């Protein structure tokens, strides 16, 4: 026996109860795939002493490829963080506070990404 929980039209559109379908799940996967090479790049650079002191950090991050990769890492990383933490909040917070939590998570992640990206740009421009 099957229980129909959504109309055929809604099923065909594939958007589900929240109205945005699999977009959250898919964005989590896309950002995850992007993060695989980016975190490996950071781990290799840091283990190799790219940021052993301030002079090496600035010369390393001022190289265009490195500033681009660090900005991509911050963007993908904080996007993945916001998506992942929201799922955890939705699973474990059973009251309406989960909506507030989702908002706080998203704002904090946008702020973190902005702070990190601005720092990279300041280092890259030698400011």
């Amino acid at each position: 026996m099957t229980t129909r929980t959504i109309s055929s039209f809604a099923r065909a559109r594939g958007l589900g109860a929240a109205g945005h379908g699999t977009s959250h799940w898919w964005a989590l996967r896309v950002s995850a795939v992007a993060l695989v090479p980016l975190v490996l790049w950071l781990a290799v650079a840091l283990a190799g002493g790219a940021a052993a002191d301030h002079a090496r950090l600035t010369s390393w991050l001022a190289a265009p490829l490195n500033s681009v990769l660090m900005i991509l890492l911050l963007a993908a990383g904080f996007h993945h963080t916001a998506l992942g933490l929201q799922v955890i909040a939705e699973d474990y917070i059973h009251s309406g506070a989960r909506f507030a939590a989702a908002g706080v998570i998203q704002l904090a992640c946008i702020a973190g990404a902005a702070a990190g990206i601005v720092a990279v740009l300041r280092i890259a421009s030698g400011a």
Partner: protein
Amino acid sequence: MPRPRPKSPNMQNYRPQLTSVLSFGHRLSGVALSLGAFGLAGWLAAGASGPEAFGAAQALLLSTFGRAVLFLITLALFYHLCNGIRHLVWDNVRGFELREIYLGGWAVVGASLILTLAFWAWGLA
């Protein structure tokens, strides 16, 4: 008044096994890496502020406490990376036989430990 329905997760009557422990570990390491992401942004901001602020950040990170936190963050990173790849394999509807699930689980445990130790061995060399 109707009795409220039980809420998931019911950890108190759930016997730990590799699959559930690794699943919870994925979330726990994700939360740790969330803090790590803010740490990375703060560390970069210190670097942008100048040698003095960066030196203070480095002194904090390279203290015994800082190194212990960094070790746990790298362990969380490599575990979440390896287990995340395991999840991506599952997303392609592969590896769902019980034997494959345990094999993949132990492979993730081994790989994340080896990567973490290799990172620190290389970094300290």
